[in-house]
């Protein structure tokens, strides 16, 4: 399988408009600087200047693919993203490193768990949240060639499923199901997949949707899930405010849809810093804990 960096290099070779930038975070692009000459620009620890310069490069017809930790990219440089890239409607691609739970032991300063809310609030900005590196690589060509600015919630995890082809703005239907729909994006697909398998073994039929893009979002998949299954479960390593649960709520209200929705997210608090497996366990996001939450919710719904 091609990794993110190799795929990016392939796309750069085919499209000379691409230019790769970083605010001195080369974790996802260790080899690339030596291979692309002056099509790589490291601005040092200057997220604001990097974004402003990316806007300037885009004014000149370039497609800058910029890298920084997701928190600093979306928070430190927010006004530059919103006012230079957003108002300018320029095709700058923002690659945010270690988003959500992936910041594991760093602590709250490094927890990008409002990034989706912030980025989707910028009018022309699209949001791509791949489940793992294979999912990222499948979506990358379309995301980089889109004329929109796009926020990419980067991750380099190994896939737990074989992904289907990427369709811009469409969810991936991982499994079909009649009772429950789990809607998930990013790294938690692996835990949602495990939860789905546990529930299926007990006779609960689970539809599992890997949302892939949160903007534009697959409204059709959400409305069908509301109509065809009795419980929707949103799973996200993000604040409850402004993420997938908010998006699903907005869509249901707009379409006068009715559904029981179980939101699994971080409710107005940062998560406990630790190594990733311990974070998942402490915060209740392992596969078996997600299955427990869904079972409990089904019982309440059944008794209501």
């Amino acid at each position, binding site marked *: 399988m091609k990794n993110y960096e190799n795929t990016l290099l392939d796309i750069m070779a085919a499209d000379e408009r691409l230019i790769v930038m970083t605010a001195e975070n080369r974790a996802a692009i260790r080899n690339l600087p030596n291979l692309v000459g002056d099509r790589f620009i490291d601005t040092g620890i200057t997220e604001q200047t990097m974004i402003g310069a990316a806007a*300037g490069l885009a004014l000149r017809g370039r497609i800058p693919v910029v890298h920084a930790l997701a928190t600093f990219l979306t928070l430190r440089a927010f006004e530059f993203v919103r006012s230079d890239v957003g108002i300018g409607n320029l095709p700058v691609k923002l690659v945010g490193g270690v988003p959500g739970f992936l910041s594991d032991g760093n602590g709250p300063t490094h927890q990008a768990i409002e990034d989706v809310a912030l980025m989707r609030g910028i009018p022309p900005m699209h949001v791509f949240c791949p489940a793992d590196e294979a999912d990222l690589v499948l979506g990358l060509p379309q995301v980089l060639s889109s004329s929109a600015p796009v926020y990419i919630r980067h991750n380099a995890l190994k896939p737990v499923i074989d992904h289907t082809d990427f369709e811009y703005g469409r969810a991936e239907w991982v499994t079909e199901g009649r009772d429950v729909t789990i809607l998930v994006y990013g790294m938690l697909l692996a835990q949602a997949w495990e939860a789905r398998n546990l529930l299926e073994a007990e006779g609960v039929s689970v539809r599992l949707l890997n949302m892939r893009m949160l903007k534009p979002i697959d409204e059709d998949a959400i409305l069908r899930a509301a109509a065809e299954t009795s419980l929707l479960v949103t799973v996200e390593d993000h604040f409850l405010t402004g993420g997938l649960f908010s998006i699903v709520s907005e869509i249901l209200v707009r379409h006068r849809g009715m559904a029981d929705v179980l939101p699994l997210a971080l409710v107005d608090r940062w998560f406990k810093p630790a190594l990733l497996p311990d974070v998942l366990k402490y915060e209740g996001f392992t596969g078996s804990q997600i299955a427990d939450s869904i079972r409990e919710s089904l019982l309440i719904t059944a008794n209501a």
Partner: protein
Amino acid sequence: MHKEEIIELEEMALRVREHIVRLSTDGGCFTGASLSCADLVVYLYTRFLNVGPHNFDAPDRDYLFLSKGHDVPALYGTFVELGWLAAERLRNHLKTNDSIYWHPNRAIPGIEFHSGSLGHLPAVAIGVALDCKRRGLANRIVVITGDGELNEGSVWEALLVAQAYKLDNLLFIIDRNHFQANIRTEELIPLEPLAPKFEAFGCTTRRVSGHDFTALDNALQEVPFAEGRPSVLIADTVRGRGLPSIQERADRWFCNFSHEEVNALLEELHGVRQAEIESEALMVR
């Protein structure tokens, strides 16, 4: 420059100031800051920059980025005088049928980028300068910032990057009118000594009066001031220049005058200009 050329520029700057004063009513505009940079803008577009409707789309044209966006009336007025913008459109100032408002936007031909939030365009200009260097082009990228704007850390962050990448195709012009929005710079966040700050950040500086076309011309002939370094021109200016009744008044940042006041200010503008011409004539004699 010949005497005739200087008079031509002064006359054009006077007409640009008239436009600025006329925009200072029915909602108003940032009159004081626009008047301080009017001479700079007129000089740059007529004598320095290779840019105009004939080459707006050419990759090797020069660029001017107005980072202190609230002085955009100076740009509107200059564009009218250059024939790039129909004079009637200035009547659409703040009207929903056009895109002429308090800060710059790209819907006006000649405006390279929007601004308004301070400290953004040094970074945007770096992106443009990096691309021009990479393409081997010799064009020049000019950024006008305010002096109050220098409070923003992003300006200094951008300078660090500009010197690291040896962007000698970048020229920063500081409209040093000695005012923040509502208070004198030196009373709030002192900037002096200013030139050594830029020098310490790897730039090469010149300092001249921003109202003296000969001095501007002499200084800008030398751009880039040093090979491999960004150039910085500190242009000492007067906020409200041309109108003694509002000049250097802390409360004359944003002005929304009555029509009668505008007429009186236009008379004052011409009176001041006439007095200048007469005193120059005396000196020549």
